[in-house]
Structure formats: C-alpha cells, structure tokens
C-alpha cells in the first residue's frame, strides 16, 4: 500500500508570513497533484508535477517534485487569509491505464489576518 504523509497536519500563521507544506512517501509516483478543498466542496486541482525536480509556480504558490519522485512540497509566500483551507497532495503510480489517486493525509492551513 502506497502512503502519502503530509506535514504539518495543522498550520496556523499570521498574514504575510511564508510557509511550506510537505508530502512524503517511501514509494515512487508517476505524478503528484496538489488539491485544495473547501468545506462542503470537492477537491480542486492546483497543479500537477510529473518530472523529478520539477518546480511549478502559481502566483504566490511554488510546488516542487522531489528528484526521486517520492516527495513534494508546497511553499506559499506572503500568505493571505484567502489561502486558508485544506491542502491535499495526491499521487498516481503510473501514467498508463486508468490509474487511481492516492491521497495524502492533508494539511489544514489557517491564515490569521
């Protein structure tokens, strides 16, 4: 069974601070996706990373895929209250076939104004 562990589980910081969320596994993934989930809604895709060492930026969010494709990180610069939410990483073992997503344990982020 492939597991994705996210840390920290909960994070509460002041507006304007920087933060990093980690997603780690002992298994190799073909790709990793980061989702954000609001209460009462489904996960919404933020980014997909597919190449070891890949870095993608989405405004103030920077996503990195580990060189060995076993881990990923999400860095937020100058956090804003609108960044508050549940952040989920999810990986696929293979890019062939109808592959399922294995979700991480989630990081609940609260940005204090």
């Amino acid at each position, binding site marked *: 069974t492939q597991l994705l562990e996210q840390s920290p589980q909960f994070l509460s910081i002041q507006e304007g601070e920087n933060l990093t969320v980690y997603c780690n596994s002992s298994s190799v993934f*073909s*790709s990793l*996706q980061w*989702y954000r989930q609001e209460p*009462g*809604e*489904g*996960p*919404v*895709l933020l980014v*997909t990373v*597919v190449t070891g060492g890949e870095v993608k930026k989405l405004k103030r969010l920077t996503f990195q895929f580990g060189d060995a494709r076993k881990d990923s990180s999400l860095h937020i610069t100058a956090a804003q209250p609108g960044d508050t939410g549940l952040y*989920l990483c*999810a990986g*696929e073992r293979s*890019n*062939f*076939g*109808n*592959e*399922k*997503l*294995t*979700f*991480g*344990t*989630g990081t609940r982020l609260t940005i204090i104004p």
Partner: protein
Amino acid sequence: EPEVTQTPSHQVTQMGQEVILRCVPISNHLYFYWYRQILGQKVEFLVSFYNNEISEKSEIFDDQFSVERPDGSNFTLKIRSTKLEDSAMYFCASRDSFGNQPQHFGDGTRLSIL
C-alpha cells in the same frame, strides 16, 4: 468551465436501506472514479471505471457496492443494505484521458446513515 455534478448534495437514509448516488461527469471524459471521505479522515479510492467496466476497486468496494453508467451521461454508485460506517462524503471524479491528465472532482454527496 465544465464541471462534474453530483446529486443529491445530502442523503439521509436508514441503516439497511439502499442508496444511489448520482454523478454527471464532464461530457467528453472517458474515465470515471468514486472516492469517499469519512469525516476527519483522508480521501480514499473506491473504484475506477472505463469502457463500461470496472478498472480497479479497493478493499472498501465490497459486494454491497456497485457502479453503473446507465445512459451515457450518468455514473452511479449504489450501496445496498447501508451500514452506519458508510456515512461519509462520496466524491465522483472524471478525466478525459490518462497520462498525467488531472481528475476533476464533483462537490460530493454527504451520506448520513441513521
């Protein structure tokens, strides 16, 4: 932007009853999924579906569960003889192809078993 839609948003059912959760995937998508999320826990895979067949199912997806694509637009999850532990959010997802294409999720159905 096209969306995955799920109905109902909330379903309350007596234990032992059957429920059908409905999903309308994005129209040109070919690959379909059901996931569930028990309150406070992580999202778990239930089943994947392609070309009118189950591609993969998890240990959770036992004989009380079934999926169907009855009419080319809907994708349903049926739970026969529901149990208290079936209470969860159920999410449908779809995508147009594999090869690192993302899955798009609906907003879920909250299933409450009494």
